[in-house]
């Protein structure tokens, strides 16, 4: 799109979108939402960038390589945390039993491993959305 | 200049001739020693090492594996000359004969059981007892001689290596069938035999080889499956598959026991060429190379008869010495079975001879004669079962006839092959006067023809006499209808005589057509092997009681037949009595009369209507069912009548087999329905769920 109004507004809005998404991810254990919805928000912000500025610029910002690392990294983080559970007590994804600090109910740093898992999931979902979008757009243009 | 004399034999002939003479000497020595004639002692007692070797536990396995290993070795030699390859083959078969001979004392004692538990789930077991030993001996001797023959014959064919390799594998499987001690082992080797012999039948790779081979393997597999069902029934109802008496457990199963024996007879009967499932025999023999035909007719169909004999006399007879009268109700099952088997044998005999008289192709005629002679053997087995306690005569007759038929039928096939090799002609009406060019072949053909006709002083006479005694006893001790059976027996023997008069007259006597005036006969291994078999025929014909005393009577004593009966009627039986020989006179005269009438009234060229073929009668309902199904599916547009499927047209109706029609039907079905089924996936799912819910809710 070559409209200057759309481009400027988008440039202003996208950081706020992403901030909101991160907020939802981080507060996954306190309020409704969590990894999936937050990740979807971040993903949609990147889709907005692609729509407005074109695939080529978006590819430079979020290239194939970066998305590969992000996707694998998200799940690897998840698995790593779970494996920590094995190393510490015995079972996969142990939370309280593994002795992670649970904190007090309602505060940000509570819930043991849950925020970390949310982060992993959020990264993964965001990168999946943007990758699928890029692939579909590129298929169509071929 | 020194001109080398024309060498009228080659190296191979010398080698094999020497081996044959060596084998004959060994055989005569052992047999004479066992019999005590010529003042010789029992060689097994004299050389104790032989006795130890005979009791070697793994001997049956060694006998089975020698041909297989030999086959592998000959594959290795196969890229060198034919001579070295065939030498391996000959040595391998000769050593098998020696090993079989070695087994005699153990077999006399009843045989040692060699079992392999856990194999194939239920375990395999091998044992060489007297019945197996008789069959093994005739198999190994005949196989050796046919291998000698095959060397000279197969020089003209291509892809011999494949032929000899599969011949070796078939030999292994046949030996395996003969030494097995339970039904599962026999089934294993039986299936292997079917598959490996298929490659021999289709060796020629011509159009008719493929269709004959297709028919052969499907009927073979069908027989195998019949035995498979009987096997499953036996395991569930009786539990123990080894060849020991199971009649007590079987009687408790009610009518299942008739199913079991019916399936077994059908399964082995397909292999044995019993009517009505004999249809593969006349197709397979003309297309197979002659050594393969000789062995197919000589040994492999006997395996079918052996199977019936073994199964019936092991499972359906009581344990020895527990019964002492003919009227014990335990014989009831075997009486009923025996009755049907005798009549099946009679029908087989009749069909065989009648159709044999109509043939002009020599090999096809011999194939029909195989069917007819197998009818004799099956009839003998039937008598052995029917008369129960007194059935020893039938058993002896069928076993003796197995030996004799193997000898003279393979000799006849070899003669046909020799004629083909020299003249490239299979039709007997186009040949003539060959006794001048092929004197040796003519002589041995005469001996074989006299043998099969049952003329005294030749081996056929002995076994046919014993079988005749058997059928007379069936009439005396049993049902009155066997009187007619005896008359049929006489007429069919006359038919056999007639047929061989016809063969000999048209092929060897008479005027020779001009094209054959230039063939130059050479003495090679063909003639050596033929001469050896002819010698054996004469030997058995002149000393019939040798085989009886050494092999058959010890076997009879193992089975639960009446010892008194055996001692009175069979021990020391002389076949050269006036009453027996005088039966032959009317038979021979009747044979000549049929021949003269046949040539005068052209009875030998009857064109039978197409619908009379066995296959068509059997499958008639299903033909019409399939045609009807097609009409139903397609309405007027049934492609059966259209050009694409011209095979189904009325004219070609009789030639197309059941399987071809089935395949065409499935093609049509698929063409119409497959795409529709694939496209209606969701519909099928919905229909299925609704149906199942309805079934569940209301049942």
């Amino acid at each position: 799109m070559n409209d200057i109004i759309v481009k400027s507004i988008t440039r202003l809005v996208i950081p706020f979108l992403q901030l909101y998404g991160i907020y939802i991810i981080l507060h996954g254990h306190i309020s409704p939402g969590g990894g999936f919805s937050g990740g979807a928000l971040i993903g949609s912000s990147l889709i907005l960038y692609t729509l407005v500025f074109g695939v080529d610029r978006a590819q430079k910002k979020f290239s194939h390589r970066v998305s590969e690392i992000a996707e694998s990294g998200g799940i690897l983080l998840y698995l790593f945390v779970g494996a920590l559970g094995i190393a510490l007590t015995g079972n996969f994804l142990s939370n309280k039993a593994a002795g992670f600090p649970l904190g007090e109910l309602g505060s940000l740093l509570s819930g043991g491993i849950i925020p970390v898992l949310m982060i992993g999931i959020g990264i993964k979902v965001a990168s999946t959305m943007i990758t699928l979008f890029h692939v579909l757009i590129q298929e169509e243009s071929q | 200049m020194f001109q080398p004399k024309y060498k009228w034999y080659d190296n191979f002939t010398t080698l094999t001739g020497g081996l044959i003479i060596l084998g004959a000497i060994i055989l005569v020595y052992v047999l004479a020693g066992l019999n005590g004639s010529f003042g010789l002692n029992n060689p097994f007692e004299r050389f104790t090492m032989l006795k130890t070797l005979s009791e070697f536990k793994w001997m049956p396995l060694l006998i089975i594996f020698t041909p297989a290993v030999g086959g592998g070795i000959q594959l290795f030699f196969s890229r060198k000359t034919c001579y070295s390859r065939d030498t391996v083959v000959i040595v391998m078969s000769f050593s098998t004969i020696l090993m079989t001979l070695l087994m005699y004392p153990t077999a006399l004692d009843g045989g040692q059981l060699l079992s392999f538990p856990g194999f194939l789930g239920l375990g395999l077991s091998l044992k060489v007892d007297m019945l197996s030993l008789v069959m093994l001996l005739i198999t190994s001797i005949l196989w050796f001689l046919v291998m000698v023959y095959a060397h000279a014959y197969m020089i003209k064919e291509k892809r011999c290596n494949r032929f000899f390799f599969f011949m070796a594998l078939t030999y292994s499987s046949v030996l395996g069938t003969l030494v097995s001690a339970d039904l599962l082992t026999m089934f294993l080797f039986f299936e292997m035999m079917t598959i490996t012999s298929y490659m021999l039948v289709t060796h020629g790779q011509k159009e008719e080889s493929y269709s004959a081979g297709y028919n052969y393997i499907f009927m073979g597999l069908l027989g195998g499956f019949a035995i498979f069902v009987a096997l499953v029934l036996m395991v569930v109802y009786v539990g123990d598959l080894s060849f020991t008496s199971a009649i007590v457990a079987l009687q408790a199963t009610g009518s299942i026991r008739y199913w079991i024996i019916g399936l077994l007879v059908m399964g082995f009967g397909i292999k044995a060429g019993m009517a009505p499932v004999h249809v593969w025999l006349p197709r397979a023999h003309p297309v197979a190379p002659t050594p393969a035909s000789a062995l197919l007719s000589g040994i492999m169909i006997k395996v079918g008869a052996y199977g019936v004999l073994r199964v019936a006399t092991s499972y359906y007879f009581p344990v020895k010495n527990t019964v002492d009268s003919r009227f014990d109700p335990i014989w009831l099952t075997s009486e009923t079975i025996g009755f049907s088997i005798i009549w099946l044998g009679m029908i087989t005999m009749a069909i065989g001879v009648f159709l044999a008289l109509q043939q002009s192709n020599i090999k096809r005629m011999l194939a029909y004669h195989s069917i007819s002679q197998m009818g004799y053997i099956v009839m003998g087995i039937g008598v052995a079962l029917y008369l129960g306690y007194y059935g020893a005569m039938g058993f002896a007759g069928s076993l003796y006839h197995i030996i004799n038929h193997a000898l003279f039928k393979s000799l006849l096939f070899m003669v046909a092959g020799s004629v083909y090799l020299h003249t490239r002609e299979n039709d007997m009406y186009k040949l003539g006067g060959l006794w001048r060019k092929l004197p040796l072949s003519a002589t041995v053909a005469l001996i074989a023809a006299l043998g099969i006709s049952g003329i005294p002083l030749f081996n056929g006479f002995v076994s046919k006499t014993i079988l005749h005694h058997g059928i007379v006893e069936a009439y005396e001790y049993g049902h009155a209808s066997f009187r007619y059976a005896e008359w049929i027996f006489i007429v069919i023997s006359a038919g056999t005589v007639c047929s061989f008069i016809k063969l000999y007259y048209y092929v060897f006597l008479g005027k020779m057509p001009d094209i054959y005036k230039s063939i130059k006969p050479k003495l090679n291994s063909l003639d050596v092997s033929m001469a050896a078999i002819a010698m054996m025929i004469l030997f058995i014909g002149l000393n019939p009681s040798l085989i009886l005393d050494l092999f058959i009577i010890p076997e009879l004593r193992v089975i639960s037949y009446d010892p008194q009966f055996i001692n009175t009627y069979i021990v020391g039986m002389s076949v050269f009595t006036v009453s027996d020989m005088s039966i032959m006179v009317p038979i021979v005269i009747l044979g000549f009369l049929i021949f003269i009438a046949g040539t005068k009234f052209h009875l030998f060229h009857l064109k039978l209507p197409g619908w009379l073929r066995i296959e068509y009668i059997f499958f008639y309902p299903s033909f019409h069912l399939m045609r009807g199904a097609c009409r139903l599916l397609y309405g007027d547009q049934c492609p059966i009548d259209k050009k694409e499927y011209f095979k189904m047209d009325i004219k070609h109706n009789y030639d197309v087999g059941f399987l071809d029609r089935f395949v065409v039907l499935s093609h049509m079905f698929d063409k119409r329905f497959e795409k529709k089924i694939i496209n209606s996936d969701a519909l099928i799912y919905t229909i299925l769920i609704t149906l199942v819910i309805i079934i569940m809710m209301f049942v």
Partner: protein
Amino acid sequence: MIEQLPIINLILLLTTALVIPLFKKQRFMVTLILSFVVLFIVWLSALYLLYHVNTTGAFYYRFGGYSPTIGLELLINPFSALFTFFVITLLMIIFIYSTADASDGIHEREYGRYYILMFILLFAMFGIIYTNDLFNTYVFMEILSITTCAIISIKRKKKNYAAAFRYVMLNEMGSLSYLFGVALLYMVTGYTNIELVFQGVQDVWVIYPTNIIIAAIFMIVGLGLKAAIFPLHIWLPDAHSAAPSSSSAILSAIVVKVYLIILVKVLFSVFGITIIEALHIPSLLMVIGAVGIVMGSFFAIAQHDIKRMLGYSSVAQIGYIVLGIGLASSLGLRIAFYHVFSHGIMKSVLFLSVGAVIYQRNLRKVTAYNGIGYMMPLSIGMFTLAALGMIGIPLTSGFISKFNLGIAALDGGQGIYIIILVVSGILNAIYYLPIIIAAFLRENPENQIYVSKDKVPLLMIMPILILGAFIVIIGVYPAIIFDLVDSAVSTFSF
């Protein structure tokens, strides 16, 4: 430490799948070696688990240590250990084959993707077999369907798209059907853990029979759709004709069997034998199995493409397994499990040897196999061996399956099914024998007389030979498998 082995397997597999895309494209060898090492480690641990479970006893694995009422549970008993071992062994051998199969349409840059998919596939299958929770089974089932679909349509050809699409749709129908059943069960029992559901179902059977009947039907039909049981087998032939050979082998030999395992679990661990018999499900399964056996072979006779023919042949053999399950006795289940092994190996040999022939000479039509036996003796020899196994010749594992299935049927009073076995053997002979006969007994196009070695890579021939040796070993000495299977069958109560 031994208790952690199952989850370590799962973690290892998923990690490998995630790590492969991080390697640079040029260093493809690293991917292969890493994959093989991981597969080998997982194989060793599956073997050790099998040994451990058979000697010490079954154990549960709870995620996070939560109790089964709220948490996720894995059950490692002889049954699951046996089938995970089966899956990993067969997949390892097919993996070795696929590393050499560079033709058949897998592009160069697709390589890494193929192995990522294979690892996720393996992860999902392990998950399904280990898990003791119905909903978790659904999750893994979805992962399995998607990756199987991807592994089948990996060749980017236009005509594959319709087949792949149909495959996805039908599999979704199957999964959703299964989910519906699970939801109904959750509704009446309140749990998704298999053992708790079993208790619940026994308790509420008299109160809510309709619920349980409908749940059973939907679950069985849904699983039947994914396991290619007869009227619902529609997607299988198309999937096979479009896929590369190693994917066909994976699909037909392993993936379909996993769904049959879920079926066994659902029937015997969730509903229990009393409810099943009250609903007449055994007779229904036996009839469907028998019809599938005959119709599968009937359609196979009419095919021209050899891979479609092998696909329909799979449908027929799955009918055998369903017949065994339907007998609902320990003998029947025993032979069904043995046939899972036997058919898995035989079908892999068939697909892999056909793949070798396609690699060297690109022959897919059934009528084009004249004389190939002289040019590719090893591949066609193994094809013959597996085909003879399908027909039911002794010395192969196919004969043992048929034989014991006949005995089991007769023992259960259903002797009529022996006829179906015989008919099936003859039908199998009708479509396998012409290929073998043409391969060895007709003249090949180059009139070659002497037998020459296959020109396919060693890595393609070795797996085929190994699997062929297994067919004979299992066929001659079936006690090897039967001992393991007996302990697996004893975990179900009749």
